[in-house]
C-alpha cells in the first residue's frame, strides 16, 4: 500500500477500482531465486500430478506399443483392475451423494416450512444486566458512551466500566 492510499479518506478514492485495489500481489518483495524457485517447484509439482496419471498413460503407451510402466499393468491388474476400482469409485460416489440427497430432502420436508421461532426475539435487557452484573443505568451508559474503558479481575470478571473522553488529537477533525 502506498503512503498516498494510506492517508486518503475520500470514499471515492477507496472505491475506485474496488476490489482489485485490495489485492496484494507483490512479487517484487521476493528475491529472484525465491520467485523462480516457486515457479519451478510448481511446474515440477504439475509434473508429479500427472505422474499420478501413470496408469492411464501406461495404457495409452501400451496401446501404441510402448511397454513402459509394465508394473502398472501387471501389479495393479491392468485395465481390469481399473474397471474394478471404477466400480467401487462410482458406487461410493452414488452412495455418498445419495445419502446427502436423502438427508437434504428429509431436512427440507421436515424443517423447510417448520418454524417454531415465529416470534421475533429481541435481547432481554434485564437478563443482559443480570448476566453481566450491571445496573440498568450502567448498561444504558454503556450503550451511549463514545469511549469506554473496561477493567477486569484476575479471574476475568468485569470489575469496572468507565466512560472516558476521547483524548484531544490534532487529527480528530479529519
Amino acid at each position, binding site marked *: *500500500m502506498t503512503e498516498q492510499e*494510506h492517508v486518503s*479518506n475520500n*470514499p471515492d478514492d*477507496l*472505491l475506485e477500482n474496488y*476490489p482489485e485495489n*485490495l489485492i*496484494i500481489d*507483490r*512479487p517484487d518483495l*521476493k528475491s529472484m531465486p525465491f520467485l523462480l524457485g*516457486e515457479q519451478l517447484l*510448481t511446474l515440477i*509439482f*504439475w509434473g508429479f*500430478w500427472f505422474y*499420478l*496419471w501413470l*496408469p492411464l498413460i501406461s495404457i495409452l503407451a501400451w496401446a501404441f506399443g510402448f511397454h513402459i510402466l509394465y508394473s*502398472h499393468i501387471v*501389479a*495393479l491388474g491392468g485395465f481390469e*483392475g*481399473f474397471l474394478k*476400482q*471404477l466400480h*467401487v*469409485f462410482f458406487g*461410493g*460416489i452414488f452412495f*455418498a*451423494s445419495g445419502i*446427502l*440427497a436423502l*438427508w*437434504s430432502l428429509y*431436512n427440507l420436508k421436515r424443517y423447510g416450512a417448520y*418454524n*417454531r*421461532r415465529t416470534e421475533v*426475539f*429481541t*435481547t432481554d435487557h434485564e437478563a*443482559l444486566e443480570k448476566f*453481566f452484573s450491571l445496573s440498568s443505568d450502567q448498561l444504558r451508559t454503556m*450503550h451511549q*458512551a*463514545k*469511549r*469506554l*474503558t*473496561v477493567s*477486569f479481575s484476575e479471574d*476475568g470478571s*468485569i470489575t469496572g466500566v468507565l466512560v472516558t473522553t*476521547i483524548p484531544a*488529537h490534532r*487529527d*480528530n477533525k479529519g
Partner: protein
Amino acid sequence: MEWLSEAISAFFGFTYYYPLFMAYLWMSGAWIYFLRWEKPFGDQVSRPPELAAYPGVSILVPCHNEAENIEETVRWLNLQRYDDYEILVVNDGSTDTTGEILDRLAGRYERVRAIHLKSNQGKACALTVGAMAARNEFLICIDGDVVLDPWASRWMVWHLTTSARVGGVTGNPRIRNRSTLLGKVQVGEFSSIIGLIKRAQRIYGRVFTVSGAVAAFRRSALQEVGFWATDMVTEDIDISWKLQLHFWDIRYEPHAICWLLMPETFKGLWKQRLRWAQGGAEVFLKNFYRIWDWKRRRMFMVFVEYCISVVWAYSMLAITLLWALGKVVTLPPLLQVRTLLPGWTGLLLGITCLIQFAVSMVIDARYDRRFGKTYFWIIWYPVAFWLINIFTIAVGFPRAVMKPRGKRALWKSPDRGLHKK
C-alpha cells in the same frame, strides 16, 4: 483370520477413498446449494435483495495489536451501504499504538465508538463486551485486519430479518495477500475447499463453523447460549455449535464478502491451522455427550464428518508409519505397505481434484475475478491440505484432550503476510 485380512484391506481402502468421496460429497452439495440458493441472485454482489425494514446494526471489531491494519478496516467500514449502523472497535489490551489509533478514529468518525479493555482478555471476551455495549439487536463481527465489502451488511441482515429462526450468518472471506506460493495456494483453498464445504454443509442443514473473520448474529440468540466461551481457542466453532444445538439456524451468504490477510510463512500457517484443529477438537469433546439426542439429529452429519476426518488423519499417519517401518523390519504380510503411491486410485484422485477446481471456478469466480490466475498454483493444494490436516489433527487433538478446562484462550497477532514484514 480372513476377517482380519478383510478388515485391514478395508482400512487401507478407507484411507485412499475417503478424500475421494468427500470431494464428490462437497461438490454435489455445493452444486445443489448453488442452483437452489445462489444462482437465482446472479453474480452481482452490489445488488442485495430489498428489505422490508432496515433495522439498526452494530459492527463489532475486536482487535489486539492491530496498529498496522485497524485504520484501513475502520475506513472501509464507514463505506457500508446501510443507513443505521454503528462501529464498535474493542481494543483488547493492545501493547502497540492500537488504542491511540482507535481514539483518533472515534474522534474522526461519528459512527465509531472505542472500547478499551485494560488487560488482554481474549477475542471471545472482547466480542462479548462489544455485544454488551452494542445498541442494536443485529451484530456483525469482523476481525481487525479485515476489509468488509460495502454491501455485506445488507446481505447478512437480509437473512436475519427474513427468518426468526436464523441466529447467525457466515460470510465469504477472500484472501488479499497473494505474493507468495502459500498466499496463492490459500486463495484456491478458500474457494475450492472451504467455499464448497460451507455450501455442502448448508445442504446437510448444519455448518461446522461460521467464519471467525466475518459473521453476523442475533444478539438474543447469543444471549440464550451465554455469548462466546472464553476458554475455547476457536470461539467461532464453539459459538456455531452452541447456537445450532439450541436449534438456531446458521446460514451461509457467499455474497457477503470480506477481504482478509492470511499467513505467508510456514510457521504462521502451521500455528493458525494447529489452532483450528485444536479448536475443532475442543468443541467436539465439549459437545460429545450433548449430541446424542434425537432432537439434535440435524447436527449428526457435521458430527459424523468430523469424526471420520479424525479417524482418517490417524489412519494415514499409521499407514505412513507402517510403510517407513517396513523399510527397516519385516512386518507380517497383512501389515506390509509396499508403496505410498496410490496407483489407479491416484489417477482417480488426480482427475477428481481437477474436477473439484473446475466446479469451484464455476461457482466462485463470480466473487473474485482474479481467482482464475491462481489456478496454476492450486495444484499444490490437495496434497498440502490433506498433509496439513493429518499433522494438525494428530497434534491438535491430544492438545485439546490435555488442555485444562476453563483455561482462558488469549490471542497473539498472527502472521499477516510478506508485505507486513
